[in-house]
């Protein structure tokens, strides 16, 4: 059943149509939720909530945007609302990024030229670093670099401008770079300490 037909039948309450829409999009939505919250139980909960909201509102879908864009917008909003509640304050999406001390450019942190990330990061490091990002940066990074959305789609999903999406992505990547470099330095320090301790033990 093509998606357009499933939408039409779901608007009439057809169970197979609902299931068809769920099967078409569940992996992508679940992956998105899991990457945002890094907890399977919570990701399941959020996925269920996103689809529930979708199906409750499906009668109002008028086709102004693609269905998947609409669904992923719902899913991102569900996740961000949950993160906001956890954070304890009603920050707007625009505010859920780190304030810049100057005119809004990225922090000027180079790292030494010999500390390139290539070869030193893997999915686990990256996931840990992404978890530390503010929600706004995390959303754009996951939607663009991980889930593969283009900026014009992210702009519709996050209801921001294309320029904003590009700017947030750049800031997210620069922040990730800082976090990954810090992690590398911490690890190097621990390795050195472990080596010193073991030499001290041998003395």
């Amino acid at each position, binding site marked *: 059943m093509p998606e357009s037909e499933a939408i039409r039948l779901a608007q009439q309450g057809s169970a197979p149509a609902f299931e068809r829409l769920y099967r078409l999009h569940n992996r992508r939505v679940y992956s998105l939720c899991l990457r945002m919250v890094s907890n399977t139980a919570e990701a399941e909960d959020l996925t269920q909530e996103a689809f529930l909201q979708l199906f409750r509102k499906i009668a109002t879908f008028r086709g102004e945007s693609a269905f998947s864009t609409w669904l992923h917008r719902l899913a991102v909003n569900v996740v961000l609302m949950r993160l906001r509640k956890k954070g304890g304050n009603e920050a707007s999406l*625009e505010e859920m990024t780190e304030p810049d001390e100057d005119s809004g450019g990225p922090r000027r942190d180079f790292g030494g030229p010999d500390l390139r990330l290539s070869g030193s990061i893997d999915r686990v490091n990256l996931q840990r670093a992404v978890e530390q990002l503010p929600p706004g940066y995390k959303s754009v990074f996951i939607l663009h670099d991980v889930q593969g959305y283009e900026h014009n789609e992210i702009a519709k999903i996050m209801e921001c401008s294309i320029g904003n999406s590009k700017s947030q992505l750049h800031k997210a990547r620069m922040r990730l770079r800082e976090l990954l470099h810090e992690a590398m330095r911490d690890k190097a320090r621990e390795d050195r300490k472990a080596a010193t301790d073991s030499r001290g033990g041998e003395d």
Partner: protein
Amino acid sequence: MITGRAVTTKSNLKAYWVTAGLLVPGLLLSSAVYAGPIRHEQHFKVTAHPVITIHNPSGLITVKAWTKAEVMVISMPATTEVEVDAEQMGNRVDVSTRALSESVAPGDMKADFQINVPEDSELQIHNDAGAVNVSNVLGDMNVETVAAGVDLADTSGYLTVKTVGGSFQCSRCAGRIEVSSITGSFRLIDLKSTHVWAQTSTGNILFNGEFLPNGTYSLKNYSGTIEVRFSPGDSFDMSATSLKGKVNNEAKLTPSTHEHHFVPRWGNALFGTFNQGRAKVELTSFDGTINILKRD
């Protein structure tokens, strides 16, 4: 003509009451026949960088910036069978027009809007027919229309505009501008923009603004005229190609010899730098005319 203070006399009073006696029934009669446009006004408190989205089939949309931390939406639907929904979620205000019944006449699916927003607002506007006018809003903007013309003035940010047949005018705008159309024409006047990408098929393109250092300006059409006006102080690297049409040039360009350029078999092309060549200007037409003229 009355000059000085008005003096009330018996004859004046009589004239006054006669006039009132004629006018009032006339006013009541006219109001019974023509109820005037339906007008709704709503206010939404917002914080910094609000997002305002407008989905409207047809009508005049006017958006202006003001200093209040508030979005004011004045909507004027064409008939009582059309309703405007405006709802706020957090720092976002969504405005949309819908029909209350399936029998609404196509010409009535229309609403006009007057919207005041904080100047740092982001706007997303879909208006198929009519017109969209935005002034003094400095946030990013995305405007899509079919036949509606779009007129932006004194805006900034990242502007993306897409029309099918609607025209586009942008005056004194900064930031980045990307505009595309099929039959719409563009007028880009006194821009302070570092990045302009404009593409139309059969429309004309007029660019009369600064070429900022390190800016990129790409203007492309299929047929019609592309006209750019330059000042003696401008500095740009120019590439102008018309596959089957003419290129008329008043700028003294230093030919560029280090790059390979495609030269069309039947049309015209020119490549070169003006002064230090700090901005990059690319003009392309299929069979239209390209005019590179001195600004008056």
